[in-house]
């Protein structure tokens, strides 16, 4: 099998499955940063497999790659304890949450400038990612994977209230810290 054909197949599968695989990994594994390594390993294994055995027998590439993802997640994070649910802060009331949600939908021109400021944008990202790994996962699953918060709660084995509180608490904290 030609290397070009192999790469083309890999790239197609990668493009088709990346979102599903990253969603799977982020929801199963420790943190967003860890997930990057795991996703890379998954696709490395996948490439090695198709290089070795071809891909004619793969009917559903997504199912196949997710199978590898299951293996990788078990392999690298089987020993990690489930994240404990920290409730250090007082919970928001329903009204407060609705307020925050409404505010998030408001246009804020300054946000585009923030994104253009790479240093600041990276700082904001790392502020989330390095805080509580669960929060980073909630952000990723919600904003990038477009998952609903109740689905995320089920996926992460948390209560909906806990997910909302973690998300909104962080957004509120960032609002003050970075003036956004």
């Amino acid at each position, binding site marked *: 099998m030609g290397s070009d054909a192999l790469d083309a197949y890999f790239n197609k599968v990668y493009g088709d499955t990346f979102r599903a695989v990253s969603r799977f990994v982020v929801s199963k594994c420790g943190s967003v940063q860890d997930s990057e390594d795991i996703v890379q390993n998954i696709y490395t294994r996948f490439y090695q497999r198709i290089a070795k055995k071809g891909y004619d027998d793969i009917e559903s590439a997504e199912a196949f790659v997710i199978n590898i993802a299951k293996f990788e997640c078990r392999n690298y994070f089987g020993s990690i304890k489930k994240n404990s649910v920290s409730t250090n802060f007082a919970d928001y009331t329903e009204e407060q949450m609705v307020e925050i949600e409404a505010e998030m939908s408001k246009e804020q021109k300054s*946000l585009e400038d923030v994104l253009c400021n790479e240093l600041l944008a990276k700082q904001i990202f790392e502020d989330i990612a390095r805080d509580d790994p669960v929060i980073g996962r909630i952000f990723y699953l919600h904003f990038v994977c477009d998952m609903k918060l109740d689905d995320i709660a089920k996926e992460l084995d948390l209560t909906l209230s806990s997910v909302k509180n973690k998300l909104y608490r962080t957004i509120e904290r960032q609002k003050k810290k970075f003036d956004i």
Partner: protein
Amino acid sequence: MNKNDFYKELFEKYALDEEKIRRNALKAAKTPAWKRAVSTHWKTAVGAAAAVAVTVGAVTYIAGQNPVIDIVSSETMLTASQRLRDAEQNYMNSSSEDESAVSIYISFSENVCYSDMSVALSAVPDSDDINVEVLYMSDGTRITGKTDIEAYAEKSAADKSIAGAKLTAPARCYRDIQDLSSVNLAEKASDILNDETFVPIPDDDPLRGDSDIAVTPAAKETPAVTTSFSFVTEKPVSEPGIIITAVQSETAETTEDPELEDPDGVNDPDDAETTLPAETEEPDIVVEETDEPEETDVPETEEPEITEAPETTADEITVAVTEISDTPDIGLMTQIYQLNVENSLETVLVGNHAVVLTRNSVYCYTLGGIMNSQPKVCEVSNPKIALADKDNVIISGCGQDGLRNVIVVLDTATGIVYSSDVKPSLGDSEIGTIYCASAEGRYFLKAVSSSSTYIYEITPNSETGVQFRPLFDYTGAVSLAGYKNNRLWFTAADENMKYSLFSFDCRLGSLRTDYVFGSECRVRRSPSFESFIISVNDAEEDRTDTFVYDVSSESLIPVQIGADANIAVKWGRIMIGADNENYVLSADGSLAVTGEKIDYSGKPHTDYVIYSSDSEKVVVSEKFGWD
């Protein structure tokens, strides 16, 4: 932009960079195993230097007969591992803008000719700035200086005998040189690594020889390897999950260690057992002094093996992988791994995986690259390796009823494991032997009950598990012999003990009698499950007639060989190993001696060797380098 969009964009940009991951995954997949391994070793060394006291062991290879390798005093010699780590560091730290001229020693993956070398180097950007200073030849000699090198190039441009070279080049070229596919290792010169001490490291280890290939006695006449081996002596400390062992390191000596006379494990009976599981099915067949020959069947001896599931205890298994570093005082050496598995039953190496069976579990260690921290892949009672080939390790196990009717398939390429309770398919019969027609990638399973034999085609499928397709059953014992183009050959006896060779058309489901022998016959298969040898024992005449069945021509060819000869198919030709010689079989049955090395074992390829295997430990060594 609102905050929802803001966070979406922020995370898309900084979390899981899709393009970067794709690039890195491809790069990692295409990086040779040793480079990945060295990367891991290096990172481990830097990141967790003092984390664990490691067991120290060494395997030293001193190739007195191999002129590539010079023996240099250990004070001035870098270990192979150290050289690899240094190369890794140089690689990581090299700058694409560094114009300074450096001396670079390159080891080719395999010997090249001058033309090949020139073509390879010409692929490096700014190759005009690269000068060849010294050529290191495979016979241990060196050619130094522009004049001599040019003379050599003119005279022997096509002679593939260049094992390495010393170059001068801008430092910025270093990475590009290392990335050349023909270059196994590129190393910058240092105080220790200089013209006198540099020895090329080829990609293939002389220790490996032809690890998959049975070595004929003629080839063994050259005493190529002398080894010395130091080993674990005590276990002073332990931590959860890790067994830390200390070792008394011995000085390198050139005395022979009986354990290592056969470093490839070619003649290791333990190893042979793991790769020839079918032997347990026909216990009274004697296989003599062959290099892992194919099994021999006598159908009437086949009986289902009744295996009692062993009793288990809660704490029977402790598993640890200790990556054993090299010792600095023993010349060139390699990384070896010690897998501590109490009560291990079987171990088989496939590719870069060590699959270890204990009484209730299957473990799969990934060697060389990223060591997996959770090697246990599944639990299965009384597991046995039914087949290990380059793609899969198929393991049978016992179900709750104590019968061998659980099947586990480990896809070694992906690490995916899928197990199936196949009792619904097998009923009261038990899994016997599994055969792989490797040329066509088809698997056949023989299940046996007290009175019948059932033949299935099985398809390991990582999405749907193992699929069973019943082919036929036979009242009595059956010896599967070979397969080609939808036709499966087997021998069996009728109620009058008259033996015949049958073939079953897997597509049409029809049975054909090809030959009737009458007398008892035995079958020896080729590793690829194609052609086979049939020995017909005529007790009344007190003689044994031996035939080779050529599945391509569907003809039975009488041959003058012993019943214990081995058979293999290579490049479409039938090869016979008998009387310490290898032969090519002609259509008329004549045998022509060949010097080719033939693999009669069907042993899956691996870059590792098991040095010792017992209930306590398995030591596995990488075979890269010549350590």
